[in-house]
């Protein structure tokens, strides 16, 4: 792998916390240029008014993963076309950290914010696995989902996605571990199972819906500009057609 592709692969580990998808898949990497050990990345978002705290998290995570590559020297990450571009880019250039970047608007750190969305991502991944199970076996009573264990899930990408989210939260990956658990790994009594699934479903719908909307807005905003490194084969002018789900 050449350095450009290595840097791009490293950016694949940076996730939009709200949408729970890599910024490379979302098309947020506008450009990536490597010159010797120097790397310059430009990021872009679906609107100028995407939340600045999430924008900062993605940009600073991008700088971190690139800086952590053994061969990088100067790493420049800039966020383009955002209402806080100047603030965030100056903060990144000076390695000022979150509080140094946002000054009086930052109280402590963004750890709680990140944790909130990691928990939501886990909830949604859990719902996808359990709903998949329900749909594959229509005879399965909903209330029995509280007893499903990790080894009951099929070996597929939906399950692997759940395992990754569990790992992030420090939840058990043992084959006998319950699938339907809260953020601390506790299961639910049978009476609570249907409502827990219902709530998890609304979380999943919310995340999926936001992700799809953001992708559409990004393409509307940058109609003639495919993202860096991987041109999108499905790239089309979205204003002119209906998008099937």
């Amino acid at each position, binding site marked *: 792998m050449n350095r450009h592709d290595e840097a791009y692969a490293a950016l694949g580990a940076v996730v939009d916390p709200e949408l729970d998808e890599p910024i490379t898949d979302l098309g947020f990497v506008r450009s990536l240029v490597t010159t010797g050990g120097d790397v310059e990345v430009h990021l872009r978002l679906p609107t100028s008014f995407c939340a600045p705290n999430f924008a900062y998290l993605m940009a600073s995570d991008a700088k971190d993963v690139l800086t952590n590559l053994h061969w990088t020297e100067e790493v420049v990450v800039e966020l383009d076309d955002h209402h806080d571009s100047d603030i965030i880019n100056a903060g990144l250039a000076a390695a000022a950290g979150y509080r140094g970047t946002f000054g009086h608007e930052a109280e402590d750190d963004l750890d709680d914010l990140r944790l909130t969305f990691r928990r939501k991502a886990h909830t949604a991944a859990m719902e996808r696995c359990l709903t998949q199970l329900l749909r594959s076996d229509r005879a399965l009573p909903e209330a029995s989902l509280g007893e499903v264990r990790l080894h009951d899930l099929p070996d597929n990408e939906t399950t692997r996605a759940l395992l990754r989210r569990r790992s992030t939260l420090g939840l058990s990956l043992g084959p006998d571990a319950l699938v339907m658990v809260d953020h601390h790994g506790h299961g639910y009594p049978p009476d609570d199972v249907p409502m827990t699934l219902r709530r998890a479903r*609304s979380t999943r719908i919310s995340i999926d*819906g936001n992700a799809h909307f953001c992708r559409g807005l990004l393409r509307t905003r940058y109609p003639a500009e495919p993202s860096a490194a991987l041109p999108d084969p499905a790239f089309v002018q979205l204003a002119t057609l209906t998008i099937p789900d």
Partner: protein
Amino acid sequence: MYEKDGEKYFIVDAHIALWDARPENQRNIHGRQFIDCFYDYHRNLSPESEVWSYEEYLYQGGDRLMKDLFTDGYVDHAIFQPAFLGEFYYRGFGQTDEASALAAAHPDKLTYNHHFDPRNGEAGLDQLRADAERFGLKGVKLYTAEWHGESRGYKLDDPWAHRYLEACQELGIRNIHVHKGPTIRPLDRDAFDVADIDHVASDYTDLNFIVEHCGLPRLEDFCWIATQEPNVHAGLAVAMPFIHTRPKYFAQIMGELLYWVGEDRIQFSSDYALWTPRWLVEAFVDFQIPDDLDDYPAITTEQKKKILGLNTAKMYDIAVPAELRLPAADEPAVGPRGADNVTAADHLVGA
């Protein structure tokens, strides 16, 4: 009024604006960025035939508004929900004088809601009292991500916000429309979080809290608080146009809202001039939950009638012809209203 297949629908557009985003009103680059963001929403979610030019989008004026809503759009009554955005636009984004004059000229068709900002302190409270008298306010529109000097957002349970909500109680301003945005202080927290609405809805049970774009992008958090608070309502601004570009997602939104919030507390709006009501009304009357989403029951004609107008008419005491009225559903005040499982609902309320 809209009529289709022998059914008549009384239409209330619960969230409209008369804005001016023309360059001469833009205070800085953020004024440009803000209207560009709206225009991308418009272009991304509208059918091709309904896409306006950028020039048209910057400013519409009262005549065009009246035509789009009442001549072409089937709307019987509409409610202004202006955003101030004084940090982005010299004369503000929502045009107070023009919109309120239009409402005064057409009181049968238009209601003017105004805005307040709790960071304006005592002076703002005096202004709110003056505005309540000037406009005869029944409601206010609050944008919690409004920039204000050094601050770029507030929460509804901030101490000063309580003072303003108490003033609303005194002044008979019963309908608090809340629009969450991307900034808040401190930035450590999720600006879209709706927990503050939960707190004030519990504290001010005689006020209605209408959460615009039904909490999106936090639909799930919104549904959860609305389930527990009988005075929290869902505004469909921004959610409506998904009916065209993303009908399955729209079906899921409606399915979730009808389940958690119930048919009596959902309000249609076009979010004019983000979108126009004509195509949205037509599409919604024709809309049905697709067969592959069998998690949700079909949406009934009665539910559509309530959402399209009767719910907001009731909240704002707008006269509805007798033959178009419907009784409230026999749903609980709290708990999932669409629940077919009473045990689960009871359990939830106790949770």
